[in-house]
C-alpha cells in the first residue's frame, strides 16, 4: 500500500501502522474489518458523542495513526466492550481504542488529565486515589476505621521496588 493523504485533515498515512498497532493489540487486526458497522450500531458513545467505531477502525486500517492519536475520537469510548463482543471479524474495536490511546501517550499528544492523575496516584499509593473519607445519606462522615474496616487496605509491601518495576514496565 502506498502512502495516502486524508484531504479532510491533511494528514498522511503510515506504512508501518500495522506493525505499530500489532505491538499493542496482540492478535487483533483492523485489516480484517469489512465495515459492516455492527460495532457502531450498538455503540452507546455513538449515540451520545457521535463517535463511529467502524470509522476509527477504517482510519487505522488505512494507516492514519498520526491523525487518530491527536483526535478526540479515541477518548470518546467508555470501554463497554459491546463492539468487541459483537465484531464478526474479531477486530476488537475497543482494544484498538486502547492501542491508539497508548500511542497518543507515547507521542506526547493531548491525553485527558484523569488518566495521568490515576497513574501518578498508583505510583504513590498503589491505587488510583488515596483512601477517601465518605459521607452517608444522613450527612455523617465515615472513614475506613470508623466503619470498623481495617484502617489501611493492603498495599505493595516495598513501595520503592513497586515503583521501579511499574516504571520499567512502561518502557
Amino acid at each position, binding site marked *: 500500500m502506498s502512502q495516502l493523504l486524508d484531504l479532510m485533515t491533511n494528514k498522511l498515512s503510515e506504512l508501518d501502522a500495522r506493525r505499530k498497532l500489532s505491538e*499493542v493489540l496482540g492478535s487483533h487486526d483492523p485489516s480484517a474489518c469489512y465495515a459492516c458497522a455492527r460495532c457502531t450500531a450498538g455503540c452507546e458513545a455513538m449515540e451520545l458523542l457521535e463517535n463511529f467505531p467502524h470509522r476509527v477502525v477504517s482510519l487505522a486500517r488505512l494507516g492514519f495513526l498520526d491523525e487518530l492519536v491527536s483526535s478526540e475520537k479515541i477518548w470518546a469510548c467508555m470501554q463497554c466492550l459491546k463492539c468487541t*463482543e459483537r465484531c464478526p471479524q474479531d477486530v476488537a474495536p475497543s482494544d484498538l481504542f486502547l492501542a491508539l490511546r497508548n500511542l497518543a501517550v507515547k507521542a506526547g499528544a493531548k491525553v485527558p488529565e484523569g488518566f495521568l492523575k490515576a497513574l501518578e496516584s498508583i505510583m504513590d499509593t498503589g491505587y488510583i486515589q488515596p483512601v477517601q473519607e465518605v459521607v452517608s445519606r*444522613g450527612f455523617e462522615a465515615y472513614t475506613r476505621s470508623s466503619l470498623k474496616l*481495617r484502617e489501611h*487496605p493492603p498495599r505493595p509491601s516495598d513501595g520503592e521496588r513497586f515503583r521501579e518495576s511499574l516504571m520499567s514496565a512502561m518502557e
Partner: protein
Amino acid sequence: MPSLRLSLYLGCTVATDEYAYELSTLSVLPKLGVELSYLEGASCCGSPLQSVNMRASTYLALRNLALADAAGLDLLTLCPGCHLSLHEAAHYVKLSPKLWEGLEPLLGNEGLRYMGEAKVWHVVDLLHDKVGLDSVRSAVSKPLRGLRLATHVGCHAIRPSRLPRVDDAERPLKLDRLVEALGAKVVDYPEKLDCCGAGFLLGNPQAGLTVAGLKVKALKARGVDGVVVACPLCHKMLGQKQQAASQLVGAELDVPVVYYTQLLGLAMGEDERALGLMLNLSPVDRLLEKLKP
C-alpha cells in the same frame, strides 16, 4: 457446609471509596461458608492504566495474580473490572512470550513469581456456581417477598466472551437467579446490557454521568423498587452520582441502588449498618420500608 477459603482482592474503588461493598461482603460471605483473608501487598489491577500503557497495566494485574499464587488460595474480586483485567493479563502473557519475558524480571524485582495457579472469582459466579443457589436460599431468614427488582450486571462481568467471564455476554442470568433466590421478583428490561458510564470517569465525566442518568431514567420508567449491582463503579455511577446525573438528563431520578451483598444480608436478617446501607446515597430507605413487616 464445606468451608471455602479465598484471598479477598479489593481493587481501587472498594479499597478507597465504596466501603459498603467491602462491609457487606465481609458480613455475609463467611456465613455462607466462605472464609476470606485480605490479599496482602495488593495494588490496582491495572484496568485504569490500559488507556495509558498496556504493558504497565498487564504488569499490575500479574503482580496481583503472583501475590495470590504466593498466598496459595483462589482470589475473590468484588469488581468486574478487576476480574476482567486479571483474566486479560493471564491471557496476554500466554499469547506473547516476548511480553512475559519482559515482565517476569520486574516481578522478580518485587520478590514475586507468577505461576497462574490461583483461580479468579467474582462474587456473582462464586455465589452462583460454587456456593450454589440452594445454599443461598437456605441462608434466607427474611425473604424479600413483594419486591420488584432489576439487575445491572456490569459490562466487564460479561464481555468479551473470548475470555472466561462471570456470565453469558448477551443473556446474563446468574445475578437474576441470585436475586430470585432471596424471594424477590426480577424485572427484565431492554437496557439491561447497557453501560453505567464509569468508563468515562477519567476521560469525560460529564458524558459518563449522562450515560448513567439515561440508564436510571429507563429503570425508573419500568417502575422497579430498586436496582441490584455487583460492581463498585456501577454503584458509584447509578447510585452515588444519581442526583448529579439527573440534572444532565432532565429527569427527577429516585431509584434505590444496592449491592447484591447488601440485599443478601437483608434477606439473612443482618443489621443495616453492618451492611453499610447508610452509605448508599440513592433513596434506599424506600426499599427498606417495603421490607418492614
